[in-house]
């Protein structure tokens, strides 16, 4: 994953596949700086999201690296700076 960067659309897809979305949330909108909590995702949803990204994009990630208090921008920055899995 040294050159290809994870995008917001990648994150949207993983969120939808792993945890779905609430009725009153527009995941396709301008969500970069909205916290996951405000988007209806709790700690477990972030655990599921991190696990899916880790295995799909071969990124080394701690179980508690992604939290509901983060925004998509913060998580993408973290993911794109993370080391590839051995």
């Amino acid at each position, binding site marked *: 994953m040294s050159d290809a960067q994870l995008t917001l659309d990648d994150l949207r897809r993983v969120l939808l*596949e*792993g945890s*779905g979305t*609430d*009725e009153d949330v527009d995941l396709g909108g301008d969500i970069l700086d909205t916290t996951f909590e405000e988007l209806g995702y709790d700690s*477990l949803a972030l655990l599921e999201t991190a*696990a899916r990204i880790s*295995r799909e994009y071969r990124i080394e990630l701690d179980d508690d690296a992604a939290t509901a208090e983060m925004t998509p921008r913060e998580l993408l920055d973290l993911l794109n700076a993370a080391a590839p899995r051995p």
Partner: protein
Amino acid sequence: MTAVVTGIGVVAPNGLGTDDYWKATCAGVDGIGPVRRFDASTYPARLAGEVPGFEASEHLPSRLLPQTDHMTRLALVAADWALADAGVDRDPEAAFERGVITASSVGGFEFVQRELQALWTKGSEYVSAYQSFAWFYAVNTGQISIRNGLKGPSGVVVSEQAGGLDAVAQARRLLRKGSKLLVSGGVDGSICPWGWVAQLSGGRVSTSDDPETAYLPFDERAAGHVPAEGGAILVVEDGEAARERGVAKVYGEIAGYAATFDPKPGIGRPPTLVRAIRAALADAGTEPGEVDVVFADAAAVPELDRVEAEAITEVFGAHGVPVTAPKTMTGRLYAGGGPVDVAAALLSIRDKVIPPTTRSRPVPGYHLDLVTGQARGVAVRTALVLARGHGGFNSALVVGAPRNDTTGRSWEKQCRTRS
């Protein structure tokens, strides 16, 4: 304190939604057929009662789908319908006065089987984070609580197929302790290979391939039951609080309840269902002669049928009370079965009709007045509902007509009878 039922949501193999269920049940329409949820062709039992036409995404947000077992989705939708029926809106100020008590017999087995298969075949990183709770006994209670903002005393009752009645009784206890409203009942089901073999191991599942003869309680040909999925969610309220809330309709009252546990087999002491019946009637302040109908547990295991028939005739006399088992149309819903019978009892009161027991021809020696063939028109004021669970659980619950029902409103009669 009276515990009144103000909302009903039924998801049953012969009807998705209370109206569909009740119309089918009064008309003797069944929902038993070959298992469709998985390929059961190589298993000893191949018939089931599956809820028809249920597409979860039509009723629930996608946020809930990855974290729910099939039976939890059914429970959430039944709870939505029951709360809507009762006219209950989300109310943050009342959140701590409103709780959830459901019953469960196994939990979300279909979900857990899928995740365990992912674990064995692909590895731990492929197991859903929602495996951490989605299969728990208490998961329906938790999900109903979260979805509807119900934060009062809550829990789950696990007593196999008696659990659905025990949950409603626990709701009544919590009303006595000061809660104003409980979402109660149970929705159950584990029609997947793992759930199936667990049910088969109990030795009470019918191996017939013929829906006409697979589940015949109180019949000479009785040879076990057909497993099924579904159940009912009820809104149970403190009668006074319901009046203050301006409730438009009350289905009836949870008037009495008792539970007993059978002695260990082989030690010569008698079964205790009859004691549960007597204690429930005493709790309700009801004489046997005041009971208009008994909704039987109807195990369709000869020894258990005999015990139930003897308990009923000991309390009510030979042919002393109409007895019915509408679950002959659905199969057994495990922890969901009792609440569906409570719903049927309340609707029997509303529509002055007793739904039939289909297909069974009762053994004459049981001396039961089994309502067979078609529904029977009876002005039901009081019903007794029985449920038993594997391992010795016996529960009896008395359902009564609404008291002081002076509204004079006539219910739309959904059941037509020719009697």
